């Protein structure tokens, strides 16, 4: 059985490996350049964290899109390899050949799906590892690894995405029995689900932490925390998000008087008077965030969700392949 998989996929596997190698070479070349640039910044700032943050990013503008490419590659591979896995065999009727050998459909599917998911996971893992390494200086400088967009390209989540994309392609192909519609459905379904999970579910994997602080002072969560929202809250519980526009309308009249027609850079004295007035009226500042220590738990939860969804799709595929007439 394994020899059949090897024969079927050796050509496309070689092409894929070559493309991956080219991608890895680009990331490596770029990453070493960024790293040496970052080291010169580190030496120049000599441990001064304010200096480090004020330095321009060591990442060159053109290649800063590399992490986003790493977001697409495992998914495209997963779907392009996964969708034809069963569908193409139906299209060319080779299921009539394979299923007439002394191998049950369950075993046939298990071997195919097993090797392909393994390849998909490896592909996601390699790309995730490369991107994580490449993002090192940026993570150190901006502490942004937990932010949407960065979180999605680093750590172990790329493995989850790649495995899920492949499982979705396999299941769609098995249901549709046609490769092209399956690719379209899998791609659309994958993008929709990714958006829903990243935007709606991920902020709530663990209950967010909210810290209140004196409005005359300031507060920022330490390290690479993921800030979900911040602003001010009144004594009565009215929440005003960050930004002057909405704050101006919500201010008590007595405090609003202290503001000139609009806040400008030269009026900092009157701004601190406004903050003091707000504090006198019982206003507090707040930051709602996921602490930096939750980065790896969140990576684990997100990867787990995608792997479980992939497992469910593969289970459906097995049921369909065994039940449906060939």
């Amino acid at each position, binding site marked *: 059985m*394994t*020899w059949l998989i090897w*024969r079927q996929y050796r050509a496309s596997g070689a092409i894929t490996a070559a493309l991956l190698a080219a991608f890895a070479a680009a990331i490596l070349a770029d990453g070493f350049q960024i790293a040496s640039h970052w080291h010169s910044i580190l030496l120049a700032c000599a441990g001064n964290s304010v200096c480090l943050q004020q330095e321009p990013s060591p990442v060159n503008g053109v290649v800063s899109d590399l992490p986003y490419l790493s977001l697409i590659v495992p998914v495209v591979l997963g779907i392009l390899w996964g969708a034809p896995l069963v569908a193409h065999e139906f299209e060319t*009727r080779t299921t009539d050949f394979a299923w*007439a050998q*002394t*191998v*049950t459909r*369950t075993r046939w599917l298990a071997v195919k799906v097993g090797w392909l998911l393994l390849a998909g996971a490896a592909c996601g893992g390699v790309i995730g590892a490369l991107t994580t390494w490449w993002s090192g200086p940026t993570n150190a400088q901006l502490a942004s690894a937990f932010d949407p967009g960065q979180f999605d390209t680093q750590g172990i989540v790329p493995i989850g995405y790649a495995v899920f994309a492949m499982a979705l392609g396999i299941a769609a192909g098995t249901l549709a029995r046609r490769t092209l519609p399956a690719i379209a459905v899998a791609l659309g379904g994958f993008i929709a689900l990714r958006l829903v999970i990243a935007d709606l579910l991920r902020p709530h994997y663990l209950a967010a932490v909210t810290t209140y602080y004196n409005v005359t002072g300031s507060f920022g969560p330490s390290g690479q925390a993921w800030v979900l929202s911040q602003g001010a809250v009144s004594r009565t519980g009215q929440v005003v998000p960050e930004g002057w526009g909405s704050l101006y309308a919500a201010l008590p009249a007595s405090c609003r008087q202290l503001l000139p027609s609009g806040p400008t850079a030269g009026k900092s004295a009157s701004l601190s008077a406004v903050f003091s007035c707000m504090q006198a009226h019982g206003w507090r500042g707040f930051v709602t965030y996921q602490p930096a220590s939750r980065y790896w738990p969140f990576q684990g939860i997100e990867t787990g969700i995608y792997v479980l969804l992939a497992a469910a799709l593969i289970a459906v595929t097995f049921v369909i392949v065994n039940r449906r007439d*060939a």
Partner: protein
Amino acid sequence: MNAAIETHELSKRYRRVSALTECTVTVPEGRVSALVGPNGAGKTTLLRLLAGLASPTGGTAYVLGGEPRQDPAFLAEIGFLAQEIPLYRRFTAEDHIRIGAHMNPRWDASLVRTRLAELRIPLDQRVGTLSGGQRAQVALALTLAKRPRVLLLDEPVAALDPLARRNFLATLTSGVADAAGGLTVVLSSHLVTDLERVCDHIVLLAASRVQLCGDIDTLLAEHKILVGPRKDTAPIERTHTVVQTVATARQSTLLVRLNGPVIDPAYQAEDVTLEELVLAYMGADEASAGKRLTTVGEAS
């Protein structure tokens, strides 16, 4: 003699269309059975049910004593070759031989190599670039290399030219001879003349039902063509079954299934050929189907 294939009221419906209706057939072990019938009669459905590639919606099928199922012990005994000659078109014959070796416990690779060498079919060429006849030969040789005890072939010669057809049937015949009675074959086709040379058993399907099933020699002996004056056939029908009646102004020709000797001296009995027999049964079905349609039309 044991039955290699035995079905009882086997039925298959696809949504509202009935592909096979209450099909009861028996094929004894070691026979080469011709599965004949017009297009759409249910031949492919029956073969796929026997191979375990489809599941019935009614009735039972037993192949070598067990129901077709997803079990290596069953799959090892069955050779199946679908109408489309499914092969991996980008793979060579040699690739297929290696795949077969990895996917089957009994695998006779030398059988394929020898047969394809005899036919001068290259092993190292992509099968997609071979001619239709060569591809069918490769597929049949691969199916035989599995050393099955039941071989199910779905219209494998339909698309072949007469020479390729003869070569294909020669490979099949030598495969049957090699197995020395241990191989039962069901071969579907609508080309009766081809089947007559290799088959000793027949299953005739028409309009999703079995019209005829049995040993060809027995069936030919049981049927006679009666030629006589045109007159009422009721006396004949009392003892015999009239399959088909062709009447001219003065003379009528009856194809009957005998149930004893024909006593009426007005009729002259003649032997029947397989082709006449098959056509008569197919025609009989069309006539009765036509009658049914008329009745339905009148009722509505």
